């Protein structure tokens, strides 16, 4: 385990950004968001960023290819794949888990080469949550914020940041900053971990009953009377899906630039009326169906295909951001007893 005093953390950032692009949470006029590190940029102390960290591997819009059109001729142009190495610092345990879930989607056959390329170029540095919020419910999905994962995991006490490499890439990263890091005892962060664990035990959303969300119970859940009431106030905006670290739906579109076509993909949202619209029309015509899709996917379909892993990491962003305060926790609580 390594350590560095917090008052000289800038030297760590400088070291990390010397060979790679460094991104870290930065305060904005409204909440924190990941920004590129430059001299003088300060690490935000915020618990979580507005947007999740999935943007680094699965950006909101991504160019897939270009078609150059001249008169009646069309030429296909492969896009330049980004090849810069980067490190994302300050990822929380929940977002770190989301990458594992996204990997299941994008790295299974057929492999999403765009995602894979970005994934191969990124190193993740996680930081243990010292002050969890009331909206945090990651523990329900087996996430332990005191063991936040990633290539390098960090813990922070009053004046020191402790760093522990979890992977080879993590080792290499720490090596590159060896000059500014000091050795630390492997148990140096234990005090922090204990403190955080004690707080976690007091979080209001604990022990959610997820037992009803099984493949066997799919039809019961699908047919539940409760969806109508739950979705009643839903405005059909995409906030929950766009701040969600695990939502992975996208749409591929062609944009006519005037001198060609740009084929790009962008996040889609199951909340949108045009979601999965195809030539024959739209399979989910009402908001209740789209709303149900979101939660059935996260709680039933995804686990059914992925060894029971729920497609939610309990980051709490949707709890904080939904304009009408409807969210997955309310859905779980409402449907938890649906199989009785």
């Amino acid at each position, binding site marked *: 385990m390594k350590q560095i005093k917090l008052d000289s953390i800038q030297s760590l950032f400088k070291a990390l950004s010397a060979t790679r692009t460094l991104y870290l949470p930065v305060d904005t006029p409204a909440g924190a968001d990941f920004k590129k590190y430059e001299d003088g940029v300060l690490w935000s102390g915020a618990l979580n960023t507005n947007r999740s960290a999935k943007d680094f591997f699965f950006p909101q819009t991504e160019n897939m290819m270009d078609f150059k059109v001249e008169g*009646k001729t069309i030429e296909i142009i492969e896009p330049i794949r980004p090849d810069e190495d980067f490190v994302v610092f300050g990822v929380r345990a929940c977002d770190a888990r989301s990458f594992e879930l996204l990997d299941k989607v994008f790295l299974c056959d057929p492999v999403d080469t765009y995602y894979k390329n970005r994934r191969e170029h990124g190193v993740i540095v996680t930081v243990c949550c010292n002050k969890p919020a009331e909206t945090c419910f990651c523990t329900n999905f087996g996430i332990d914020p005191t063991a936040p994962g990633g290539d390098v995991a960090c813990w922070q006490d009053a004046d020191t940041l402790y760093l522990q490499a979890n992977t080879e890439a993590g080792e290499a990263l720490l090596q590159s900053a060896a000059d500014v890091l000091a050795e630390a005892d492997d148990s140096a962060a234990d005090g922090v971990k204990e403190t955080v664990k004690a707080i976690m035990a007091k979080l209001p959303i604990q022990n959610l009953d997820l037992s009803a969300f099984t493949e066997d119970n799919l039809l019961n859940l699908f047919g539940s009377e409760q969806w109508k009431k739950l979705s009643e106030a839903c405005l059909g905006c995409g906030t929950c899906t766009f701040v969600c670290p695990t939502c992975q739906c996208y749409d591929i579109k062609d944009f006519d630039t005037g001198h060609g076509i740009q084929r790009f993909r962008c996040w889609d949202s199951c909340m949108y009326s045009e979601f999965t619209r195809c030539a024959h029309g739209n399979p989910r015509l009402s908001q209740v169906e789209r709303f149900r899709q979101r939660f059935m996917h996260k709680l039933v379909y995804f686990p059914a295909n992925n060894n029971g892993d729920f497609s939610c990491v309990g980051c709490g962003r949707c709890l904080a951001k939904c304009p009408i305060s409807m969210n997955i926790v309310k859905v779980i609580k409402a449907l938890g007893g649906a199989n009785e």
Partner: protein
Amino acid sequence: MQRIGVFVCWCGSNIAGTVDVHKVAEALKSEPGVVIATQYQYMCSEAGQTLIKDAIRDHKLTGIVVCSCSPRMHEATFRKTAAAAGLNPYMVEIANIREQCSWIHKDMEVGTEKAIILGRAAIAKVHLNAPLVAGESPVVKRALVIGGGIAGIQTALDIADAGFPVDIVETKPTIGGKMAQIDKTFPTLDCAACILTPKMVDAAQHDKINIYAYSEVAEVKGFVGNFSVKIKQKARMVDPVKCTGCGLCVEKCPMKKVPNEFNLGMDKRSAIYIPFAQAVPKVATIDPTACLKMKTGKCGLCATVCEAGAIDYTQQDSFIEEKYGAIVVATGYNPINLDQFDEFAYNQSPDVVTSLEFERLTNAAGPTAGTLLRPSDGKHPHTLVFVQCVGSRCDGAEKGKSYCSKICCMYTAKHAMLCREKYPDTEVYVFYIDVRTPGKNFDEFYRRAVEEYGVKYIKGMVGKVAPQADGSLLVQASDLIEGEQLKIKADMVVLAAAIEPDQSARPLATMLTASMDTNDFFTEAHPKLRPVESPTAGVFLSGCCQGPKDIPETVSQASGAAAKVIGLLVKDSLTCNPCVAHSDELMCNGCSACEKVCPYGAITYQDKEFRMPDRTTAIRRVASVNPAVCQGCGACTVACPSGAMDLNGFSNSQIMAEVDAICK
């Protein structure tokens, strides 16, 4: 994908001089969808058109672009060419490479480059063109004239003489309007009744004219060629068919203290009355607010004396529905209320009168049998002061009107002149801001009043009229030319009150969806070129409802409106411009934004049942555009937030395609 033909015209050297037409054709040939691109010396010539027609047939073209002169010049020509070859005429687009290119750019390279871009824009547009078919709507060969004054009568007579049936709706018990109340007309000094009443009789006797007097328009539906109008016939308590107009009932009626509106309240009439001797229809009317039988149930004398048995106290308002192809508005004017002009003491002294009241005081059928007498004591007045522009040309609009009422200068000159002629012992003053006499023989008339009849014209405004204890009126005024304050002891003061549209005009405009200006005058379709038409198709304007006018002007506009109506009614059906707006009902919010900006009233709403996206059914309010009424301006398309409203021929996507082609 369209199959597009591009035809580049040389226009002799007009285009070819500064645009390389071969290069343009060559460049446009490689545009997507273009199957043939060629050039020719004169595309509009017989040979050029044949070239286009052959290409349409040979290459099975679905759209053509002609790069030539302005579409204002030959769009119609090439549309006909396309139609002749079996292509929908609206699949033609023109790229204006003459007026907007070759004629303004001297450099061949620059001109050619721009011509190619303009050609691309036209190609991009024609890709999105759709065949349009002009609709037809039948014309009901009957006209409605609203208002039975001289404007309405003249319009009705002209239309009827052309052989089309006309209905006149008049709110008063008789037609005749304001002209019937006027004594003499300027500048000829004919007796108004002598020239008006024969026309009233003509109208009454015309087999094509039907007069609904004492009636009002209650509801208007439909559109040009096909209006459906509900007319309310107010209860007269007299059967107009049975009544002979003998006048016995009027004579016997015991209630004789009702202010006589025909004489502007300056004398009395009975509760059952005929407005004046030459009234048309000459039918008695019971005033229910004055009739003893109606109020108390006791009397019934008129019914007893009526030999024709025409009196019917139980009569109710009745409604008639009729269809019309055209509607003429001739609702006329009224002098404004003078309550706000306290400085002239109109409400304080009976000897301060309006000019219209003065007409009655000099009229042989008026309250004084034509002898000019002071209303207060019945004595002969010696000094008369006429005040012009009372309520006209007012600034600030706190009171009065900002416009000139146009007729006051001339009738005041007439009144002053007649006064001096009949009563040479009188002294007559006229206070004016300007004397406006544009009109045939008008200025000569005014000068006669000054020069031959010694009327004292003073430039200046009257500040105050104060009734004196001796019954005279002290007029305080300024003489702007002499620069002095005047005090005149007058026996009578005559106010040339401004005129304003009749109060029935505003609700009528709403029913007709015809637009009005801020003064409630109807607006014309074009102030210079279409002065007798309302912007609402099928609605025409006659007389003072459109703006202040004298009699000859009114009559000429009336005949002008009639000519327009005849031109419409003579058609069996109307061909509609297919480049009109249309609403996508699935996207329409029913919010009325489009309706509010439509100058033609072409948009209506209906509640329709829809299958909603979520499989439920719901009643939704949606807009629909009447293609016979819409003129295709596109105001609605921008007012519509959802984009449900679009315009044929100039659709959102077509315009954006042009933008894209130009900017790329």
